[in-house]
C-alpha cells in the first residue's frame, strides 16, 4: 500500500465543441495522501472541477474525453475501468458533494429515502436497517431531531441543512475518498463555517482523504493539509498549506492570496492577480504595498459628503396567509422599520445573511418593490410620493447592479443594445451614431473593448458580464448606485478587479453606493459606513472600521467570527 490513495499521472481532458477542441486539463499529475485533506484551488475554467470529475469518471462524453494519463486508485487505473466497476466505486469508495444543495437533491423523495438508496445499493441493507442507519447519519451531520427529519422533503430544509444531507449521503458508505466541489460557495458565512467544521470532524472520524475544490484560498486555510493551485488547465504550484500561505512561489498563487479582502487590513485598492503576473503567466514586478496592517480610511466631509439619501422607517411586509375574505392574517416582515442615511460620494455597506431583507430593502429604495410604509428621501424629496412619470425621470439618477451577471442581461440583446437602451429611454445622445460612440466609451471605461458592442451576453465570461452591467448602469450618468451582491457570484480574483473598478468609478463620477453583501470582508474593504441587518431590522450601524473593531450586537460578533481567517491552522496563534 502506498501512502497515496489516488495518484493522477499525466492526465489530459479535452472537450470537443462547435468552436474547436478545448484542452480543459493539460498533462496534470497530483496525488491524494491517505487520511489527509487536499485543497484544489483555481478560478472558474481552470480545470479543477474537470480533474475531480475525471476521478469519478463522470466527464460527460461527448463532448469531453480523457485523452491521456492514468488515475491510480489503490493501484488500479480508473481510466481503464469499466462502467460496472466504476459504479461499485462511485458513492461507495469515492463519493462527492456538489456546490448547489438546492438542485442536487431530488425534490420528490424524502431525504431519508435518498440516503437509504445509497445504502441499499452498495451495502445490501434492507429498508429498515437502511432507515436506521440514515437516522444515525443525519444525527452525525448535525441535523436536529433526525427521527422526524428523515421523513422531510428537501424543500422543507434550509440550504445549510440540505448540504448536511448531501454530506450524510456522501459518507453513508464510509468512503475512502470524499470529493467536495465548492460545497460552501452557495452558503452564508455562518453556515459555511459550520459545514467546514463538520467536514473537518468527519474527515478525522472516518480517516477519509478529502479533495476540497474551491476558488477561494481563504476557505481552505483552516482545513487543508496540502494545496494544489490550478491555472488554465495546469497545476502551477503544490505544497503544504503552510508553504503556500507563507512562501508562495508562483505569481498566480501570490495574486490569489493578496486579492482577497481581509478583516485585518484595509488597503486603498485591492491587489489583483494581474499585478503579479502578466498575460503569458510570467512574474511581474509590482510596487504594491502588501503590508497587511495598512489601514486606509476615507475622510467624511460634511460639505463634500452631505447626506443625500434618507431612509426613514421603511417597511415592506408581504402577506403570508390570507383569510376566507382576502383579509391578511399573517405578514412576513421582510423589511421592518429601517432608518438609514447615505452620504454623497461615499459607500454604505449593508450586511446580513440570506433572508434578512437586505435585497428587498435595496429594491424598495428604487421602488422596484413598493414599500408598505416609511419615507425614502432623496435630495430632499420623498420619492415614495412620486407618480410613474416622475419616478421614471428619477431612475436616471438611481441605478442598480445585480448579483448574477448571467441573469441580469437579456440573452437576446447585443451588449451594445443593452447599454444603449437606457439612453433611448431617457433620450440621451443625438441619434444612433452618437449613442454607439457613447456606449463604446463606456465599454472602454469598464475595461472592455469597444469592438465587442455587437456581441451577445453568452459570449462573455462572468466577470466581463458584470462589467457590462456596470457600463449599462453608468449609461444614464447616475448619482447613486445600489450594488446588490454584485461580486458574490464571481471568483475572488475577478472580484478584486470589479471592486477596484467600482472604487475608480466612484472617484471619477462622484458616485454614491449602497453595497449589499453577505461577505463582511468585501463590505469592509469597499464601504465607509456599514449597517448590519438581521430579520428585517438594522441591528447595528457604524463606520467601517468601528464596526469591525468594536462590534456591539451579538449577531455582528457571530458574523465576524464566522469569516474564514485565511490562516493555516498550524500558523494560528495558540490562544484562538
Amino acid at each position, binding site marked *: 500500500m502506498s501512502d497515496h490513495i489516488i495518484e493522477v499521472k499525466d492526465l489530459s481532458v479535452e472537450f470537443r465543441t462547435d468552436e474547436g477542441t478545448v484542452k480543459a486539463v493539460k498533462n496534470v499529475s497530483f496525488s491524494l495522501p491517505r487520511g489527509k485533506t487536499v485543497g484544489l484551488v483555481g478560478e472558474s475554467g481552470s480545470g479543477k472541477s474537470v480533474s475531480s470529475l475525471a476521478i469519478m469518471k463522470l466527464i460527460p462524453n461527448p463532448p469531453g474525453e480523457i485523452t491521456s494519463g492514468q488515475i491510480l486508485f489503490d493501484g488500479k487505473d480508473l481510466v481503464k475501468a469499466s462502467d460496472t466497476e466504476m459504479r461499485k466505486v462511485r458513492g461507495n469508495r469515492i463519493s462527492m458533494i456538489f456546490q448547489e444543495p438546492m438542485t442536487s437533491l431530488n425534490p420528490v423523495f424524502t431525504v431519508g429515502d435518498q440516503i437509504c438508496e445509497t445504502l441499499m445499493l452498495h451495502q445490501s441493507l434492507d429498508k429498515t436497517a437502511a432507515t436506521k442507519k440514515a437516522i444515525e447519519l443525519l444525527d452525525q451531520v448535525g441535523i436536529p431531531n433526525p427521527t422526524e427529519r428523515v421523513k422531510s422533503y428537501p424543500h422543507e430544509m434550509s440550504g445549510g441543512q440540505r448540504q448536511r444531507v448531501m454530506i450524510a449521503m456522501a459518507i453513508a458508505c464510509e468512503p475512502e475518498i470524499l470529493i467536495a466541489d465548492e460545497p460552501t460557495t452557495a452558503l452564508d458565512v455562518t453556515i459555511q463555517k459550520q459545514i467546514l467544521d463538520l467536514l473537518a470532524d468527519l474527515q478525522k472520524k472516518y480517516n477519509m482523504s478529502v479533495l476540497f475544490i474551491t476558488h477561494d484560498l481563504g476557505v481552505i486555510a483552516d482545513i487543508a493539509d496540502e494545496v494544489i493551485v490550478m491555472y488554465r488547465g495546469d497545476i502551477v504550484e503544490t505544497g503544504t498549506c503552510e508553504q503556500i500561505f507563507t512562501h508562495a512561489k508562483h505569481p498566480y498563487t501570490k495574486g490569489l492570496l493578496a486579492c482577497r479582502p481581509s478583516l485585518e487590513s484595509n488597503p486603498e485598492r485591492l491587489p489583483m492577480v494581474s499585478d503579479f503576473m502578466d498575460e503569458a503567466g510570467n512574474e511581474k514586478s509590482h510596487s504594491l504595498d502588501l503590508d497587511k496592517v495598512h489601514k486606509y480610511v476615507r475622510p467624511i466631509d460634511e460639505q463634500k459628503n452631505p447626506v443625500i439619501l434618507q431612509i426613514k422607517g421603511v417597511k415592506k411586509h408581504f402577506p403570508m396567509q390570507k383569510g376566507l375574505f382576502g383579509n391578511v392574517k399573517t405578514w412576513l416582515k421582510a423589511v421592518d422599520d429601517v432608518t438609514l442615511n447615505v452620504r454623497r460620494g461615499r459607500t454604505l455597506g449593508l450586511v446580513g445573511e440570506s433572508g434578512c431583507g437586505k435585497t428587498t430593502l435595496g429594491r424598495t429604495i428604487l421602488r*422596484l418593490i413598493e414599500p408598505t410604509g416609511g419615507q425614502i428621501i432623496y435630495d430632499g424629496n420623498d420619492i415614495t410620493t412620486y407618480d410613474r412619470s416622475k419616478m421614471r425621470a428619477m*431612475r436616471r439618477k438611481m*441605478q442598480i447592479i*445585480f448579483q448574477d451577471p448571467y441573469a441580469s442581461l*437579456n440573452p*437576446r440583446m447585443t451588449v451594445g443594445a443593452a447599454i444603449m437602451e437606457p439612453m433611448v429611454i431617457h433620450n440621451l445622445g443625438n441619434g444612433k451614431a452618437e449613442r454607439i460612440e457613447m456606449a463604446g466609451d463606456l465599454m472602454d471605461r469598464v475595461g472592455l473593448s*469597444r469592438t*465587442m*458592442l455587437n456581441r451577445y451576453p453568452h459570449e462573455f465570461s462572468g466577470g466581463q458580464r458584470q462589467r457590462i452591467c456596470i457600463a449599462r448602469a453608468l449609461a444614464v450618468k447616475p448619482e447613486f448606485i445600489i450594488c446588490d451582491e454584485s461580486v458574490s457570484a464571481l471568483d475572488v480574483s475577478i472580484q478584486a478587479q470589479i471592486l477596484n473598478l467600482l472604487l475608480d468609478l466612484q472617484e471619477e463620477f462622484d458616485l454614491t453606493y449602497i453595497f449589499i453583501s453577505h461577505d463582511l470582508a468585501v463590505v469592509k474593504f469597499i464601504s465607509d459606513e456599514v449597517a448590519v441587518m438581521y430579520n428585517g431590522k438594522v441591528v447595528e450601524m457604524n463606520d467601517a472600521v468601528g464596526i469591525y473593531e468594536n462590534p456591539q450586537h451579538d449577531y455582528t460578533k457571530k458574523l465576524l467570527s464566522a469569516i474564514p481567517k485565511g490562516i493555516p491552522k498550524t500558523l494560528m496563534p495558540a490562544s484562538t
Partner: protein
Amino acid sequence: MKATTMNAVNVASNPQLEQGRSLWYDAYLRIKKDKVAVISFFTICFYLVLTLLSSLGVIFDNYGVVDNSLTYLPPSWDHWFGTDLFGRDVLARAVHGTKTSLVVGFAGTGIAMAIGTVLGACSGYFGGKVDDLIVWFYTTIDTIPYILLVVAFSFVLGPSLLTLCLAIGLTAWVRHCRIVRAEYIKHRDLDYVQGAAALGASHARRIFLHILPNVFHLVLINFSLGFVGAVKSEVILSFLGLGVEPGTPSWGVMINDAKQELFRGVWWNLAAATLFMFFLVLAFNLFTDALRDALDPKLKNK
C-alpha cells in the same frame, strides 16, 4: 509597435464592430446541420410554391373544368390521380386543396398565436386581477367543446374559408396562451427584466422588447404545432360539411366524397388527398421537432 498604434487609431475613428453570434443564429446553424429538418423545410417550401403557382393559374388551372364524359377515370398519364364524378382532374383538385389547407393553417394559427401571445403575456406579466380575468376567460372558452364552437361560428357567419380561419384561430389559442403565461411569470422576476425596470423601461417595453424575444421560440414551436392541428381541423370540418363552402377544392371534401366512391372501387380521390396531407403534416411535424431541439436552450449542449 507601429501596427498596433495604427490599429488603435483605426478602431477609435471607425469602430469596426466585431460581429456577435446571436442565439437565433446558433439555432439556425443547428437546424442547418440537421438533414431531416432541411428536407422537411424544403418539402414545406415545395407546398408553398405549388400553392402559389396554382393560385396564379400557372399550373393546374383545369381544376374546375367539368366534363361528364370523363367521370371516374382511373389514374393514367393524362390524369395521374384519375378523375372524379364530374370528370375533374383529381391531382389538380388536390393541389388546389393545398391552398385551402395552407391558408387555414397560416391564418388560423396566426390568429391563435397573436391572441394567445398577447393575452398570455399580459396575464403572466401583470398577474393579479388581469391574470384572474384572462385565466377565467380562457378556462371558459376551454370548457366549450371545440366542434360546438366551430359549428356556432359556421351558423353565424356561413361556411367559408374565412369562417374556418376565424373558428380555428379563436379556439386554438388557449393552449398557447397557457404556455406563454407560465413563461412570462418565470421571466418577469428575472434580473434582466428588473434591471430594465430600474432603467425606467415602461411595461410595454419590458413585455415586448425584453421578454418577448426570450419566449419567442415557444411562439415558433407552438405555431408549427398549431399549424398541423389547423390543417387537420380543416380536413375534419370539411369532411363533416362544416368547412369551406361547396365547390372549393379541399382535402376534407375529397375524403368526404370518397365515402360514397370507395365501394365502387374509386380509391384515387381518397389516396390523393391523404398522400398530400400526409407529407405536409409529416414535414411540419419533423420540422417542429428539429425547431424545438434547435431553439430550446436547455437542450443546447446535448
